[in-house]
């Protein structure tokens, strides 16, 4: 069987976080009543004149700079023509041959290896409306249209076909999302549709220079869906070739429930958008000074921040990468370290217990009830020996659930560590008496047996005994 390689490029749409739409003063606020955030311009009524929202251009330039792109000196808007009920004008205002930004790249890390993924272009365009169907799309005879989203500003970020696996595609999207979020131009919420991703995928025998026929995959609404859809599509195309057939150039949709992609047979003939410059919109001449101002306003981006975390906090590269994955998480971590100066210990708690609990509950760092101040306080209690490492986990869990101060949790639950030698001494005596076999093993030179005895003491003190003290007392009494 021949070996195949996949060639993957992603097209990502990001909704910009402006107050108003791209060409009119209608609000972009999410979740309004249907057709309440519209005006004659975004409804495409005859005789209206679109005017560009300056903030949109600023944000697009900002995103372009963050993605290492060259910003165009001259840029314009074009009409992309197609008929669909979510598009009241029967064309979408987009950018065709003179996009706002081109020739960028970002860096991904998959299995410890770094790789650059090229970014072909970033262009501005307007979003379309939303179609609502009662029942399922196949059974309902009509569509209900809400034009609130029509005209919401988008940037489309097109990558080079530089990825060759589902892992790389996911790593690219994660990094892209992080970079855009850091710049603050978008929330990038996949669930709310402010970040949407399509994939162009083809396969070819290894060593073949010519690209295979590609399929475009749509409707992947999460990182997990992207990974599954890309893996599935690569396998599907390899099977088609292995069967001696040809891959058809087409658009396919990812069906999450069935776990497969299937062809969207479109009534439209081959894409024929008949782009032409929009005569309603004056071209953009981008002032270099403005670009420099925007560049100066860029925050520290994920890669820089990761490198600084390694350098300043002495963290392993992996920790630094995870902690800088979102701006909020990195901010949270730094606030903690500022209050409790042990970067690696803080990292362990944030990436360990905290990340695990957030994962289970589906919480984002913004929803977190443990403040950096509280996390630092808990680590101080641990330092002072007020609580043991084991108890700390219990305290932390309670803090996570209730948002209470660690001191209060310890007090309410009676979790203070027992460091009273007299009290522990009594328990140690009991444990020695009850476990003659282990005592004998230890005295015979089996060092490991002491672990069991320590465990027994901890058990009967419900984890509250100071483990260092328990160890010490046991060794003393066992005469070693």
């Amino acid at each position, binding site marked *: 069987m021949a070996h195949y390689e996949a060639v993957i490029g992603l097209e990502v749409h990001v909704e910009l976080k*402006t*107050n*108003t739409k791209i060409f*009119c*003063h*209608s*609000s972009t606020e999410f979740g309004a*009543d*249907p*057709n*309440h*955030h*519209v*005006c*004659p311009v975004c*409804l495409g009524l005859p005789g209206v004149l679109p*005017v*560009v*929202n*300056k*903030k*949109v*251009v600023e944000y697009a330039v900002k995103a372009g700079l963050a993605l290492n792109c060259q910003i165009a000196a*001259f840029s*314009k808007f074009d009409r992309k*023509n*197609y*008929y*669909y*009920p979510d598009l009241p004008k029967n064309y979408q205002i987009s950018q065709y041959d*003179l996009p706002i930004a081109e020739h960028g790249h970002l860096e991904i890390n998959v299995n410890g290896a770094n790789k650059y993924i090229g970014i072909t272009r970033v262009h501005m365009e307007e979003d379309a409306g939303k179609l*609502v*169907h009662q029942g399922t*799309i196949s059974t*309902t*005879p*009509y*569509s*209900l*249209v*809400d*034009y609130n989203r029509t005209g919401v500003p988008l940037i489309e970020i097109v990558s080079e076909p530089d990825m060759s696996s589902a892992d790389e595609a996911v790593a690219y999207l994660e990094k892209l999302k992080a970079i855009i979020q850091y710049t603050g131009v978008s929330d990038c919420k996949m669930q709310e549709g402010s970040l949407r991703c399509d994939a162009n995928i083809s396969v070819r025998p290894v060593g073949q220079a010519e690209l295979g026929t590609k399929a475009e995959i749509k409707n992947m609404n999460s990182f997990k869906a992207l990974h599954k859809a890309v893996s599935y599509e690569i396998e599907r195309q390899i099977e088609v070739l292995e069967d001696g057939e040809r891959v058809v150039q087409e658009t396919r949709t990812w069906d999450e429930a069935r776990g497969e992609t299937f062809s*969207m047979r479109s*009534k*439209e*003939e081959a894409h*024929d958008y*008949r782009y032409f*410059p929009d*005569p309603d*919109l*004056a*071209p*953009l*001449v981008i002032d270099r000074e403005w670009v420099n101002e925007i560049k100066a306003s860029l925050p520290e981006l994920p890669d820089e921040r990761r490198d600084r975390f390694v350098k300043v906090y002495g963290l392993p590269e992996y920790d630094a990468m995870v902690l800088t994955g979102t701006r909020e998480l990195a901010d949270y971590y730094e606030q903690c370290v500022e209050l409790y100066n042990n970067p690696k210990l803080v990292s362990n708690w944030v990436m360990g217990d905290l990340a695990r609990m957030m994962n289970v509950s589906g919480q984002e760092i913004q929803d977190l009830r443990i403040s950096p101040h509280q996390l630092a306080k808990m680590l101080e209690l641990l330092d002072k020996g007020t609580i043991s490492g084991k108890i700390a986990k219990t305290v932390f869990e309670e803090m996570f659930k209730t948002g209470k101060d660690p001191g209060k949790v310890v007090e309410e639950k009676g979790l203070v560590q027992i460091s009273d030698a007299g009290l522990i001494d009594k328990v140690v005596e009991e444990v020695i008496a009850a476990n003659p076999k282990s005592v004998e093993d230890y005295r015979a030179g089996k060092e490991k047996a002491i672990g069991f005895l320590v465990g027994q003491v901890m058990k009967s003190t419900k984890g509250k005994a100071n483990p260092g003290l328990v160890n010490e007392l046991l060794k003393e009494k066992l005469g070693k």
Partner: protein
Amino acid sequence: MISLKDVEHVALLARLSLTEDEKQVYTRQLSDILEHVRKLQDLNTDGIQPTAHVLPLQNVFREDRVGEHLPVDQVLANAPERQDNFFKVPKII
């Protein structure tokens, strides 16, 4: 030259249904129009920048401030059919 097939293709994209007679007429008329416009190609355009806009305008911006929305009854006044506050249209997949 415009072929009958071109006319059918453009008509489909524009969602127009044409009779056979109309297709013939438009094939001829569109060809004439294109032939007329083609004369522009005889002009010498060496050293001339492509035109992006017919008026000497650039950077016409608005500030990012929310203005008034259209009342929903007016929004839906032209709807072919209405259901609650939605436009109701035939389903297209």
